[in-house]
């Protein structure tokens, strides 16, 4: 291997190395299990929202598909999980979660063909239309879904037959956090793989992708399907942790809020949805204690302000903040990333 080739190999792999910021983020996330037991209910919601936002980031931040209908997958899987538990079809929650994810992924696969072509507006309308159609269906078949009253009488069995859900949300939080972490690891692997690189390329220039031999449509179908599966698992988690599912899981507001969450955190680096979810939930919690009814106003204002400031400027701030956090973390535990940064680390290829 020539020195240049070695440098190239090193640089290509280095992007995927865990940074101090990332390690700190997950340590804090898991530490909250013990440090913030009284906040577990809201943290559960946060973890679910984070997973949901992660699914949107995969298609919007990496593949460039604007969607205002991610709730379609969230809601469908939410109802599936609820019905499965209610009628005892699948009792074990983890299995039910996986099945719900598969159902949502199947729906994502079928509808992915609708978003392959067309402008942003067309995609927006089609994704929105699909979720509204499902909302109408759920409303129409209220004998199954419970309609406006919601799906009642869902009882969720203990996880793996061992861990019973409790009313303080302790079990639920640990469960959701682990699912989020596993899904995140999968997404992280994926975006640093050749497949993930091709998605970024498609977002940048789909025409050129065809000209370097990338089957653009097949890639978009694949990522849309996977993202639908993640969104579905988030929906199933919500049903399982609340033992309830109502029509608003399919609503436009849910998809619109999701966009906001992701925008707060920033798109295209995976942590945007997670950080956005934390900020959003705690902001909601805080504002709700001040003016519960007009929460929406502040959400709207935030959106307007973010756009007026400019998302690229926001992204720059995010990056600076992350770098500062990472420095802080590195210093705090006296840990140096060592010479690997310079490219002299062990070669594993």
């Amino acid at each position: 291997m020539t020195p240049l080739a070695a440098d190239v190999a090193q640089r290509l792999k280095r992007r995927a190395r865990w940074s101090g910021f990332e390690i700190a983020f997950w340590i804090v996330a898991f530490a909250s299990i013990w440090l913030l037991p009284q906040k577990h209910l809201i943290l559960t919601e946060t973890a679910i929202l984070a997973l949901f936002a992660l699914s949107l980031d995969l298609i919007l931040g990496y593949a460039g598909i604007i969607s205002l209908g991610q709730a379609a997958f969230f809601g469908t899987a939410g109802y599936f999980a609820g019905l499965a538990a209610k009628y005892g079809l699948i009792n074990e929650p983890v299995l039910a979660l996986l099945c719900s994810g598969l159902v949502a992924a199947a729906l994502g696969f079928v509808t992915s063909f609708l978003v392959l072509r067309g402008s942003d507006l067309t995609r927006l309308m089609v994704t929105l239309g699909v979720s509204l159609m499902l909302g109408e269906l759920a409303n129409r078949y209220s004998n199954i879904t419970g309609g406006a009253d919601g799906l009642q009488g869902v009882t969720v069995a203990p996880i793996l037959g061992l861990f019973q859900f409790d009313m303080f949300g302790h079990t639920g939080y640990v469960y959701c956090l682990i699912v989020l972490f596993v899904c995140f690891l999968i997404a992280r692997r994926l975006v640093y793989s050749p497949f993930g690189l091709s998605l970024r390329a498609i977002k940048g220039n789909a025409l050129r992708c065809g000209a370097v031999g990338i089957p653009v449509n097949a890639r978009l179908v694949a990522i849309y399907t996977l993202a639908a599966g993640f969104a579905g698992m988030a929906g199933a988690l919500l049903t399982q942790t609340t033992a309830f599912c109502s029509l608003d899981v399919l609503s436009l507001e849910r998809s619109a809020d999701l966009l906001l969450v992701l925008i707060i955190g920033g798109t295209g680096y995976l942590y945007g949805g997670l950080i956005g979810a934390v900020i959003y939930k705690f902001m909601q919690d805080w504002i709700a204690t001040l003016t519960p009814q007009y929460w929406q106003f502040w959400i709207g204002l935030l959106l307007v302000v973010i756009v007026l400031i400019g998302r690229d400027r926001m992204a720059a701030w995010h990056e600076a903040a992350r770098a500062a956090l990472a420095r802080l973390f590195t210093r705090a535990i006296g840990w140096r990333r060592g010479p690997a940064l310079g490219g002299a680390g062990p070669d594993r290829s």
Partner: protein
Amino acid sequence: MAILETIGLAKRFGGIVAAADVTLAIDKGARHALIGPNGAGKTTVINLLSGVLKPTAGRILLEGRDITALDPHQRVRLGMARTFQINALFLDLTPLEAIALAVSERLGFGIDCWRLVGRKGAVADEAAEIVERFHLGDVMHERTAILPYGKQRLLEIALAFACRPRVLLLDEPAAGVPEAERHELLATIAALPADVTVLLIEHDMDLVFSFADRISVLVNGALFVDGAPDAVARDPRVKAVYLGEELDA
């Protein structure tokens, strides 16, 4: 022996004829130039060959195989790649990432969603080789969007080359490149491996006559003259078409 052939290739947009009955044969290993005045349909021909446009009539054969109905990415996999007249690059990726992407797609790792990019030694080796061949070593870790124009043009060709084509279609590779960066670009084009067949579209007659061993002239979407460079240069009809344009080789 022809590696790439078109038979009666035609493209109409509504009432406008962009290409009419183009029958062209490009020999294996040739340095073939396609020239013609503005609006003659040169880029349309490239778009038809690469599959960006579907022809209204006619067929395209690559190594004797009919590829008329194939998608662009399938044609790339069969060994024909192109560059774009107006840069079509991945602005947010670095040149290295873009080249590694093209290489790993060609080697069939594109659907690999588990291993890291560059985990396969073959990808890194080949990406490094291409970076060197196209003089991109000093900028390979920069974002493509901020590269000097000449480097972007080099990357434009490097991306096509990374598909390891047997036929390479170059659409005005030197267009707009400032004089200072021009020499590097022309030298790189001249140094393309001899076994790669090149179809070149170019306005710059110096480049055409120094590079091509065969020239086809396209006028109003139709093939006008086809022959060796000196024959084409002497042809009075070509001179008439290029009235006012210099044509001294």
